[in-house]
């Protein structure tokens, strides 16, 4: 297992290299540079600035320089925010995203899983259709509709909660962003869990367990739960990364200082290093999340062995 993980991580290196190269090429192929502003700078000054950031060197040289930096864990300076490195921006923004994303993931699992199992046990009754129709609504209403409506109701009209801002991460500031972020994931998890639970419950070994006279509770938790979790695990791998990157919308609406905002602003203002740094971060996160998902797979299903 350890050797397998190590090999997977090693094989991620060429993948990451492709991601970096592709993003680097894309960014630099685009017209415009980070220091093309509305106000035209005197050519000499612009040249000096570009020289200071090595932007006047030929591209291959810039690329190699950048790779060398990244290898040392340095994502370089931000062009847009003076005197700030990309590492600083990530260190500031990431905790916000992880806090909100983590709570949202936990919440959506705590609500979604029981609803899914509950609906599966009452397959094709009103108690199945009702929650599933509600879950479908949760998937169909994107968070950029739900969140503003929540703000209007709970902040503007009822004055129960603050309308936005990080507020040092105090619970009252967290409630709405977490709920808005968790809603579609909860719905998705509930639907996924229902589907795989229904399928598992119809398999022969469950029938055998029932026929032996085991109580339903034992059958579900001891026999059906683990295999039913399999599709969920493969969903949760990428989803847990998505729940952080998906909060770009949430960050914008609740004006939170997460990295999603930096990314979009960076892309708009040709802040190459910020875009590249965050892209690499996402890439690493996806690779690690998929590895963890595969390892959990082996825990759930003893037939899967990795060498």
């Amino acid at each position, binding site marked *: 297992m350890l050797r397998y993980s190590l090999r997977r991580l090693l094989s*991620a290196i*060429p*993948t*990451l290299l*492709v*991601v970096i190269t*592709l*993003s680097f090429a*894309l*960014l630099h*192929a*685009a*017209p415009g540079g980070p220091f093309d502003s509305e106000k035209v700078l005197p050519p000499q000054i612009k040249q000096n600035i570009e020289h200071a950031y090595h932007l006047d060197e030929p591209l291959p040289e810039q690329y190699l320089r950048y790779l060398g930096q990244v290898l040392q864990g340095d994502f370089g300076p931000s062009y847009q925010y003076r005197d700030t490195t990309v590492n600083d921006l990530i260190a500031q923004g990431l905790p916000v995203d992880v806090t909100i994303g983590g709570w949202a993931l936990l919440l959506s699992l705590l609500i979604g899983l029981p609803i899914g199992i509950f609906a599966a046990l009452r397959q094709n009754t009103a108690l199945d259709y009702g929650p599933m129709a509600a879950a*479908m*609504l949760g*998937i*169909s*209403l*994107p968070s*950029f*509709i739900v969140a*503003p*409506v929540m703000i*209007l109701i709970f902040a*503007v009209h009822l004055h129960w909660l603050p309308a936005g801002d990080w507020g040092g991460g105090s619970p009252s500031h967290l409630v709405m962003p977490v709920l808005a972020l968790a809603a579609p994931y909860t719905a998705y998890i509930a639907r996924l869990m229902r589907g795989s639970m229904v399928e598992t419950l119809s398999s022969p070994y469950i029938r055998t367990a029932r026929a032996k006279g085991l109580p339903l509770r034992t059958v579900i938790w001891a026999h059906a739960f683990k295999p039913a979790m399999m599709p969920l695990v493969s969903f949760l791998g990428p989803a847990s990364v*998505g729940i952080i*990157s*998906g909060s*770009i*919308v949430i960050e*914008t*609406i609740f004006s939170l200082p997460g990295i999603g905002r930096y*990314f*979009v602003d960076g*892309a*708009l203002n040709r802040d190459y290093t910020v*875009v590249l740094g*965050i*892209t690499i971060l*996402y*890439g690493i996160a*996806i*690779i690690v999340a*998929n590895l963890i998902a595969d390892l959990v797979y082996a825990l759930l299903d003893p037939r899967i062995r990795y060498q």
Partner: protein
Amino acid sequence: MSTPPPRSRPLAHATAVTEAALTGADREALAGRSLWQDAWRRLRRNRAAMASLILLGLIVLAAIFGPMISPYDYYTPQWTLLNQWPTLAGGHILGTDNLGRDELVRVLWGCRISLMIGLVASVVSLSIGVLWGTTAGYVGGWVDSLMMRIVDILYSVPFIPFVIVLLVLFGRELILIFVAIGAVSWLDIARIVRGQTLTLKKREFVEAARASGVGGFAIIRRHLIPNLLGIVVIYITLTIPSLILFEAFLSFLGLGVQAPMTSLGVLVSDGVADLQSFPYLLIVPSAFLAVIIYCFNYLGDGLRDALDPKDR
């Protein structure tokens, strides 16, 4: 579709003899039902899926013909009619937006564009995915390993950031939005199709085709792809809504369709801006968006139940 009525004219030669010997009931049982007729039969029994199909059909018709019939267009501002609330009097049934443009026409145009983005992007992604998956699965060997390795690598490329970068850098042409979204979302379907191809290519009819000298590409086109259509149809109905949502997400970030052209995403994000004073500008496009997504998802679920061989 009900069973076809008995043919009035006798069939040619040999079949005519056997035909005559059969009773009506036998004949009905013998009249082969294709996979698609079977699936259609099952789908018709699924009330939620049928309701979704009909509702979607109505929305599509309205999106196509509505703007043609309406006396208003989606781009001309009417400075005397800014932010009119929905009313039955005066012709603007769903009100007007902050430039006095008829909201109903704009929403119908939004449906048009959003549905087109969903459809075109799905077709792009499916074309790439199906071709990629069948080729990898059918050819096998190192080609398969190489092609699937590429898919694995692309899986680790962060999808949302990539599209954002693409759109920011290369302008926000409508056609580019289609292609950009489609070109990065074919990975799942490639994997699914490859898996199916691997099992299909060991079947006798493929063996028979190969034995009679049919070329590799012809086998893919004539024997493999038709057999994969079921999954593809299911997948397309489930991909369209997620791509429509993705377009809405891009519009929300200000990277979607450019004004004065509109899409449901653009309308929703405009509506969010004016939420407090003019909530109808959010409610109307949101309702259309939710209904479209809802219907596609239910239809996709119904199709999966109808076409999934496991249930048979």
